[in-house]
């Protein structure tokens, strides 16, 4: 496949086309990913997540600049939401990344969620794999602005940075399950605003209360991404986390977990696909009617459909 060869050789237009194939899914995408897979597995995948308006894009911009100063190439995947009503999307993360223009060591791609609800698009993991395979040393993944429970990024990234802003909640917010639990690094951005130290203290207090299951305590850092304050410290913490993952054997474990999750996800999709193709839409509709008419329940209907599967 031509696009793969060209993208592996460093052709950026081929890379962009390839990402589109992968985003649109289908047999062509699967063939491309099969060819790329052996080349992947070298990049440090860093997730950046947090509520809307906390400054994720600006922080990604600063992190990328810092990584480039260290001589490392950076691929960026920035995800924004698709409208559930029209299917359209406004992808605006590049607005904050204009400093990165013109650098051949950077490649930025905006993605719409296309109906996915976990903070990433269905194909984000595969797009990350493409950037990894063509040789970017670091892939930064910016999620949509999230609430409390969109935690898909933790399965995609090696290192997850959760960005908070001052004044978004008290200690009880910090105790809730979900987003804060997946943080490998907690960043209080916009730290020049009132309440930053308080937010950082609440997060530290949350960390004091638990999670001694492994040897990494997420550091709580303060940044002002707009002027770059604290970004070097964040980069150091990210590097320290990578070293920790590798020394503790967690890197390999996370890779394995991801392979497992990917395999199950694809199996789920393919099995459903096959079942629908073999049973036929008519038969499916027949069972839908029966469930809707209260003649049979969903579990019985599903079992009947699965029994017909060779």
């Amino acid at each position, binding site marked *: 496949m031509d696009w793969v060869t060209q993208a592996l050789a460093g052709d*950026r*237009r081929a890379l*962009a*086309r390839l*990402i*589109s194939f992968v*985003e*649109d899914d289908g047999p062509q995408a699967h063939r491309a990913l099969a060819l790329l897979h052996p080349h992947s597995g070298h990049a440090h995948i860093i997730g950046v997540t947090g509520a809307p308006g906390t400054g994720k894009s600006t922080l990604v911009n600063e992190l990328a600049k810092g990584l480039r100063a260290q001589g490392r190439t950076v691929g960026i995947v920035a995800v924004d939401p*698709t*409208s559930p009503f*029209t*299917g*359209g*999307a*406004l*992808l*605006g993360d*590049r*607005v904050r990344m*204009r400093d990165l*223009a*013109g650098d051949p060591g950077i*490649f*930025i*791609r*905006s993605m*719409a969620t*296309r109906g996915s609800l976990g903070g990433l698009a269905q194909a984000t993991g595969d797009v990350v794999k493409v950037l990894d395979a063509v040789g970017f040393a670091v892939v930064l993944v910016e999620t949509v602005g999230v609430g409390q429970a969109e935690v898909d990024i933790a399965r995609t990234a090696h290192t997850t940075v959760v960005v908070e802003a001052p004044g978004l909640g008290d200690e009880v917010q910090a105790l809730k399950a979900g987003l804060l639990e997946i943080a490998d690094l907690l960043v209080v951005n916009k730290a020049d605003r009132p309440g930053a130290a308080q937010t950082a203290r609440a997060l530290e207090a949350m960390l004091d209360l638990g999670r001694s299951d492994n040897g990494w305590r997420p550091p709580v850092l303060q940044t002002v991404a707009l002027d770059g304050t604290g970004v070097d410290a964040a980069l150091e913490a990210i590097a320290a986390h990578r070293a920790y993952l590798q020394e503790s054997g967690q890197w390999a474990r996370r890779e394995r977990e991801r392979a497992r999750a990917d395999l199950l996800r694809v199996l789920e999709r393919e099995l459903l696909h096959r079942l629908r193709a073999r049973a036929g839409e008519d038969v499916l509709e027949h069972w839908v009617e029966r469930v809707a008419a209260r003649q049979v329940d969903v579990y019985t209907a599903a079992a009947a459909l699965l029994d017909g599967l060779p």
Partner: protein
Amino acid sequence: MSERLRILIAKPGLDGHDRGAKVVARALRDAGMEVIYTGLRQTPEMIVEAALQEDVDAVGLSILSGAHMTLVPRVIEGLRAAGLSHVKVFVGGIIPDEDVPALQEQGVVAIFGPGASTQVIAETIRRALSEG
């Protein structure tokens, strides 16, 4: 081509009036397209680079500064040089009537002035892109 149209909306030049660009970006979003919005003060080189990385089907340029006769050709030439001659270019803003033929000759597929309805803009772009 992907079933989902991807459109880059960019604002080249130095003026700070981005309301038109935002209105169009929003309208195309509502028409079901994926709109990549890059914000103010983009150079032609930045626009071409973004069009390439984002693999867009079309680029919309919002220009109110009067510099369209220099900026538009530079974007179109840049796209061609980057191997992106399939990417359609449309322009919005203050474009005097006498400049329209020259821009169309350059390859601009549509020009929208003040007061153009957002629905017409979305339909025109969709039609231009389906003609391939």
